[in-house]
């Protein structure tokens, strides 16, 4: 249906020419889903935009052809192209916030393609738009037609985008990262919706994503892109099982999975992706490939037939079998739970963020970001916090290190209260609580050199002489695997992974007892992410500090922590040993979250029954009783009235649910301390 042959795109910018796409061959058959995966900057979006004829200004198609059902698209005139766009070929973009016109109602926006292409009257178009909104799962579409984009949640907006793309029943849909900005639970729903609609409307789909798990589950065939080239393509199962290209194999190896062996170091691809402006000689991956030979560096690999049908790869030294790259190292076994006394205790912690009152004399309302959370972390233990976006993880994390003051409740470190104290009263205890931030860019002062950044904690705490401080900075760098040569640079001169390591080194400079890491790797690309994860784990084990890892990525949390807490709308719904919680989730929410995680394995069972449905309620007025009841398949009247408390369902495994998926242990003990003892 859509055949791309040897497509190359060039973008001319003053002083440099970027080649984001080089010699890409792709075929899309009717009714199939073609997944395109690759790291950031690999040219996925450019390929999609080239098909749409919407390349950014200054870019030209320098070679190849795009054949859509017999029509050559690369040479099509603007008017004819417009007739195809939005009609025969549609596109869904990643960012649903800016992809909708803020000043027009969603009804108008969904109806627009019909008016443009089918000459439909306004009335007809709106009627059809309403049907379409219903089809993409927007409840009460007739009421929603007049809404403006800002009144919808992220998931809803993405649905509107889909309705808009599908209203003319196109034959090809290009979905460019349609779910990247969304929570796993919603991501699963949207992807499911897309697959369903695709079947229903009989169209073909190109699904662009950087998530191997997503393609594994949703694509019929997969194309892997690297540095502007398509390096491997084939049927999903075949490609995953008989991975040939060294890059694909490295990529798959570096993704932590829910079934990952925690004691084995993750594989990580060294270096960073190529600059699309650099001249392209040989295999683009050669610089980072362990198997690279001289030939790889000089000769561009030619496409080669792989084992399965339509499996093509471009690699001089293909990997021979399916096995992933063997991990080099095992982590030493930690001597589990020697210290009995908890180092960090959190007692009924609450945080409310006031928001401006609605109405003039209205009550000042507040977002209940954290609503009564209690847990403990022992010395040397790593504790994880997971949950959907907005459930209060970061708010909690900031209170743990006394960056924010709790509304009520307290945080104790070694039995001493650290919350609710002014910076002065906190004194030297301040240094014992450190944090690693999510955004490596924002967490380093752009005007400071690395050496100053690393010395700053010591300066502030008046530790050591200048010479000692420099020595300690060098040591800190070494401990995160960086050489001293980096000291004279500014943060923007470092890669994301390096910056994140500096952030970690700085947090460690004061030798903290407690380290909170808020989304430490979620801003990093897959290949870099594994480097940082490995490092964090090493440090944790070496230093024996108590750490709290916050992430919405369940696999990351599982890899890093011993115990995990699942948060929902400000409350802890399940706490327990990681393996226990992951293998035998007791809360329906935990189970749903786990079910929604896309696994980079085409054979993994997909159990849609357990998924969490619907949207997160507003934390301004959370539901009464059990907060999860509005989305829970098991909810009854009881759940609306009585708020469940944490009760044990196993050794070191508590859940707050009236109808846990695991049998409760009798007698129920609220006291987690007691349970573990």
């Amino acid at each position, binding site marked *: 249906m859509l055949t791309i042959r040897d497509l190359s795109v060039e973008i001319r910018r003053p002083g440099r020419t970027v080649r984001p796409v080089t010699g890409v061959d792709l075929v899309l058959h009717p009714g199939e889903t073609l997944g395109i995966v690759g790291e950031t900057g690999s040219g996925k979006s450019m390929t999609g935009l080239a098909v749409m004829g919407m390349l950014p200004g200054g870019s030209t198609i320098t070679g190849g052809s795009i054949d859509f059902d017999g029509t050559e698209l690369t040479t099509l005139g603007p008017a004819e192209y417009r007739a195809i766009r939005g009609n025969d070929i549609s596109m869904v973009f990643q960012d649903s916030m800016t992809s909708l016109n803020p000043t027009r109602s969603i009804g108008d926006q969904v109806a627009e393609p019909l008016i443009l292409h089918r000459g439909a009257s306004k009335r007809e178009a709106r009627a059809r738009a309403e049907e379409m909104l219903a089809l993409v799962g927007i409840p009460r579409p007739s009421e929603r037609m007049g809404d403006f984009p800002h009144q919808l949640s992220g998931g809803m907006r993405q649905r509107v985008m889909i309705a808009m793309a599908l209203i003319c029943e196109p034959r090809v849909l290009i979905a460019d990262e349609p779910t990247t900005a969304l929570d796993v639970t919603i991501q699963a729903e949207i992807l499911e919706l897309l697959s369903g609609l695709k079947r229903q409307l009989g169209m073909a789909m190109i699904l662009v994503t950087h998530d191997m798990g997503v393609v594994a589950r949703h694509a019929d065939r997969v194309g892997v892109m690297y540095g502007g080239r398509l390096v491997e393509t084939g049927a999903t199962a075949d490609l995953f099982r008989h991975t040939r290209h060294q890059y694909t194999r490295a990529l798959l190896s570096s993704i932590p999975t829910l079934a990952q062996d925690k004691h084995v170091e993750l594989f*990580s691809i*060294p*270096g*960073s992706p190529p*600059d699309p402006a650099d001249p392209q000689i040989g295999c683009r991956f050669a610089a980072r490939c362990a198997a690279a030979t001289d030939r790889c560096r000089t000769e561009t690999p030619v496409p080669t037939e792989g084992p399965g049908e339509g499996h093509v790869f471009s690699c001089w030294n293909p990997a021979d079998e399916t096995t992933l790259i063997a991990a080099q190292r095992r982590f030493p076994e930690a001597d589990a739970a020697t210290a009995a006394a908890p180092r960090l205790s959190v007692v009924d912690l609450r945080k409310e963020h006031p928001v401006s009152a609605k109405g003039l004399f209205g009550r000042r309302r507040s977002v209940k970001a954290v609503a009564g959370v209690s847990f403990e972390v022992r010395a040397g233990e790593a504790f994880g916090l997971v949950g959907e976006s907005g459930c209060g993880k970061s708010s909690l994390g*900031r209170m743990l*290190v006394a*960056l924010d003051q709790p509304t009520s409740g307290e945080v104790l470190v070694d039995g001493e209260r650290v919350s609710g104290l002014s*910076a002065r009263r*906190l004194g030297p205890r*301040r*240094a014992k*609580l*450190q*944090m690693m*931030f*999510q*955004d490596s860019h*924002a*967490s*380093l*002062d*752009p*005007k*400071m050199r690395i050496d100053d950044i690393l010395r*700053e*904690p010591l300066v*502030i*705490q008046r530790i050591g002489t200048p010479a000692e401080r420099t020595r300690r900075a060098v040591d800190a760098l*070494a*401990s*995160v*695997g*960086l*050489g001293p*040569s*980096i000291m004279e*640079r*500014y943060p*923007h*001169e*470092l*890669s994301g*992974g*390096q910056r994140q*390591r500096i*952030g970690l080194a*700085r*947090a460690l400079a*004061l030798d903290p007892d407690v380290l909170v890491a808020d989304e430490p790797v979620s801003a990093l690309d897959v290949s870099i992410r594994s*480097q940082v994860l490995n*490092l964090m784990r*090493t440090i944790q084990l070496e230093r024996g500090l108590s750490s709290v890892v916050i992430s919405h990525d369940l696999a990351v949390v599982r890899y890093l922590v011993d115990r995990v807490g699942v948060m929902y709308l400000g409350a802890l719904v399940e706490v327990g040993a990681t393996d226990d919680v992951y293998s035998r989730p007791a809360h329906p929410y935990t189970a749903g979250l786990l079910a929604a995680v896309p696994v980079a394995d085409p054979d993994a069972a997909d159990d849609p029954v357990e998924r969490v449905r619907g949207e997160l309620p507003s934390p301004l007025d959370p539901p009464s009783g059990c907060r999860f009841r509005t989305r829970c398949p098991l909810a009854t009247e009881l759940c609306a009235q009585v708020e469940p408390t944490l009760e044990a369902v196993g050794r070191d495994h508590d859940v707050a649910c009236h109808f846990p998926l695991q049998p409760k242990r009798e007698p129920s003990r609220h006291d987690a301390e007691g349970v573990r003892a």
Partner: protein
Amino acid sequence: MTSARAEVAAEELPALATRNPISRSAVLGALWRNKPGMAGVFILVGLVLFCYLGPLVYPTNQSDVDLLNAALPPGEGFPLGTDSNGFDVLGRLMQGGQVSLQIGLLAAIFATTLGTIYGAVAGLVGGVVDGIMMRIVDVLLSIPFLFFVLIIAARFQATPLTLSLVIGGFSWLVAARLIRGEVLSLRVREFVSAARLMGASNRRLIFTHLIPNTFGVIIVNLTFQVADSIIVLAALGYLGFGLSYPVTDWGSQLSSGVSFLAADYWWMIYPVGACIVLTVLALNLLGDALRDAIEHRTV
């Protein structure tokens, strides 16, 4: 264990080093490549040389009124003619230029300093204090600035210093808002949280983290402020509230020229007009170029 990892990291270095050159020279580099910006720099340098070195090359008597040679059109001995007091217009341009540039710069420095401190304090302290401080700015911003300056300039004798203070005293508001905005966005940045985590005091936050990071904005604002001050100064002069003998500035020169509009004494109007336009133009070009350069760098 550290050595192996250090190697891995070291591999990443070369590629990245070329990608993002360092800060100050990067800004200057970007400025250098910005043609209009460089034009601005050249015009400015030219004007400064004209005003400050010009009198050495082309000395004129700017203190003795010459009744017989008043209001002469350009010609022998007076390349740009003379003004109504018989002062050589070309020489007067140089003298007035010095004063205009000095007042512009002084007013801008005054406004920017005041605005920066005010904005930084409001932004960092936040809460009610910020609310009150910013409402004050709102109030002052709502009052037509020129009206205020005129009333004050009419009431008190104008000297270069008072003019700078008056102009500066009313133009710090924009700077204050700008810096406050910057500080507001900076103070929730994670590096500020990180510094807090280490136990940094508010003072340290302001001086080592917040102010240096607003420096680009401050410089850009300063450049525009100089331009604006020169325009306001010219307007004041034009409306008759400029400086008086023996001091002069471009606006006052223009003002005295304008009273001879009916008599067609163009040389008293256009050359000094051109000087004002060129200066402001150059400063705006430079400011825009600096802003572009600074924004590019932080991307």
